[in-house]
């Protein structure tokens, strides 16, 4: 039992909501934990500081800087058994996506391999008291004893946060769901599995529209799968999906009901000098994200992060090396399956900095304007509260300097696959296996 609870805590997705007030995490055990940012005591302006980042505020500030505390915890998905296939369906939460807030309640989508659920998270701080038919403990009263009628009144109670499943979108995916994306019309969303993408209306759970289907008639001819998909942040008819062959397709839903023919096709020609048996595997895109502006898309493959301009399909406009020192280790990484790790990538609020994870609990940030980059580590030893994160460096060959770490000393079991960036401030959330780190920028 102890072992099970440890495995269940591996964080599998991290996502801020649209205001950044809430931060949701999903884990391998099917649980969702939502953190809420404390209201700041005094309304100080915070300066945007480029890396290095620090945890918490500097010492000359008196008020608390708005830290994140647990707001709600609930079990989103349970393990299931598919009797037809004699296989387990994992309860692991693959993705969480927030809906924009439209009333007092919060709504989010969470998905495992097969089923998407819409959860409503709401607060209750008042309770009706003075029922006629029930007494204070909730027991039914004998109607014969009731001689007067009264109107129940709402009285304050301790704050309670409830999560209720409002919709369950099931039985629409044969293959494993890897992405969900809320459309900018806030009425529809899409779910993508290895071979198909479906479009849903939030109100309708027993029907979805299939908008992409790349399943070949003969499964033996299958050579490519869908790896990620996302809606354009402003144009509700446009979405992109990435593939295991390193390509991105942009589709327009107005063109046809089944978007099998893409509007744009993004692919970088292969570098023949780098060709190896692993070329295709490392070109497989693990994540695709639109910039907030909607002008760019960012893709993550095994060794790099690339930024593409929507108007240029033949190559990316920027390529950043995440951990190129692994290029000579691909054979070993293939053997231990690390080469199949799916790293995610994120934009900051202004689309000027991009971030992605690596091994040894390292994560990397690239400033698109200054072209500076930094490697940071998410670990307990190096992150005392209010401490400034020290940049890390991996030594590739030759002499290793004092603070550097050599490639062979890297811990490949400590991988940072999931990170999130606050929509407007320099606050980042980094999931390191079963620990969540939240870093804020230095405030002067």
């Amino acid at each position, binding site marked *: 039992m102890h072992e099970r609870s440890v495995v269940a805590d591996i964080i599998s997705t991290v996502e801020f909501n649209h205001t950044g007030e809430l931060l949701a995490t999903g884990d391998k055990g099917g649980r969702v934990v939502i953190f809420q940012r404390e209201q700041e005591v005094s309304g100080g302006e915070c300066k945007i500081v480029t890396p290095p980042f620090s945890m918490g505020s500097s010492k000359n500030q008196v008020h608390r800087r708005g830290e994140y505390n647990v707001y709600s915890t609930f079990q989103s998905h349970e393990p299931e058994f598919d009797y*037809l*296939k*004699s*296989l*387990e*369906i*994992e309860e692991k939460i693959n993705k969480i996506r927030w809906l924009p807030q439209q009333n007092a309640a919060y709504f989010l989508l969470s998905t495992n*391999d097969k089923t998407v659920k819409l959860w409503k998270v709401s607060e209750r701080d008042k309770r009706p008291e003075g029922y006629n038919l029930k007494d204070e403990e909730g027991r039914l009263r004998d109607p014969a004893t009731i001689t007067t009628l009264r109107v129940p009144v709402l009285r304050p109670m301790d704050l309670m946060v409830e999560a209720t499943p409002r919709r369950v979108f099931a*039985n*629409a995916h*044969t*293959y*494993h769901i890897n992405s969900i994306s809320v459309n900018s019309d806030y009425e529809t969303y899409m779910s993508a599995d*290895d*071979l198909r993408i479906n479009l849903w209306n939030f109100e309708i759970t*027993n*029907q979805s529209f*299939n908008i992409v289907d790349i399943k070949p008639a003969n*499964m*033996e001819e*299958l*050579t*490519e*799968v869908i*790896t990620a998909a996302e809606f354009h942040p402003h144009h509700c008819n446009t979405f992109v999906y990435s593939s*295991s062959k390193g390509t991105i397709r942009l589709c327009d839903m107005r063109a046809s009901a089944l978007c099998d023919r893409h509007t744009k096709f993004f692919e970088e020609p292969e570098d023949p000098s780098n*060709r*190896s*048996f*692993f070329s*295709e*595997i490392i070109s*497989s895109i693990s994540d695709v994200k639109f910039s907030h502006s909607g002008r760019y898309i960012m893709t993550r493959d095994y060794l790099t992060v690339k930024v593409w301009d929507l108007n240029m399909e033949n190559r990316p406009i920027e390529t950043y090396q995440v951990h190129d020192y692994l*290029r*000579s*280790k*691909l*054979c*070993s990484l*293939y*053997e231990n*399956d690390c080469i*199949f790790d799916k790293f995610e990538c994120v934009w900051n609020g202004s689309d000027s900095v991009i971030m992605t994870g690596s091994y040894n609990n390292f994560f990397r940030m690239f400033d698109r304007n200054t072209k500076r980059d930094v490697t940071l580590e998410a670990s307990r030893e190096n992150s005392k509260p209010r401490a400034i994160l020290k940049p890390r460096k991996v030594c590739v060959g030759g002499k290793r300097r004092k603070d550097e770490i050599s490639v062979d000393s890297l811990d490949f079991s400590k991988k940072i696959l999931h990170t999130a960036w606050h929509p407007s401030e320099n606050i980042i959330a980094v999931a390191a296996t079963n620990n969540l780190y939240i870093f804020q920028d230095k405030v002067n």
Partner: protein
Amino acid sequence: MFARGLKRKCVGHEEDVEGALAGLKTVSSYSLQRQSLLDMSLVKLQLCHMLVEPNLCRSVLIANTVRQIQEEMTQDGTWRAVAPQAAERAPLDRLVSTEILCRAAWGQEGAHPAPGLGDGHTQGPVSDLCPVTSAQAARHLQSSAWEMDGPRENRGSFHKSLDQIFETLETKNPSCMEELFSDVDSPYYDLDTVLTGMMGGARPGPCEGLEGLAPATPGPSSSCKSDLGELDHVVEILVET
């Protein structure tokens, strides 16, 4: 050219060697490395079948890698077909083994039963590999293939139209409910036939299917009478379900 490329990929303890003899050594070490990569990939594909559904992306990427290696080996001339029937078939069959492997890898998505179950031509993949694979690797692959086949053989017949079933679910057409269960009966029918065959006295082929089901019996013809009561009981249960 190839040798250099491979050196870059693998954990390179291969030093740069000069000279004609050294050149030969490099080429053969490249072949060895390529071969071990092929073996590793095949093992990975077979080991995809866990309790949870295998990761399709991973399977596809590994299968593509295997196909790449095979293509290169075919061009090199190091990929030799063993069985005579294999040699007679069209050039496309150099990829037959990959297709069959792919079928095995995502067998539950609606393909034919896993290879090596007694069909003549599906002996292809394992026997094709024999000359180029080391004996140990071949035995390992074969045994792992058989292990996988045992408990999963039943699933093979299920999955023939599994995809059809799920497409049906997608469209939510109630009249297709019959189709949903039409294939469920077939493995039980096979079992019935097998058991009948056992009682009647020995057809070695179908008995293989029992490996994963009934407790191990020494041979089809032995102890039939003593087992008769037990088999009757089993058949009864199956028929009732």
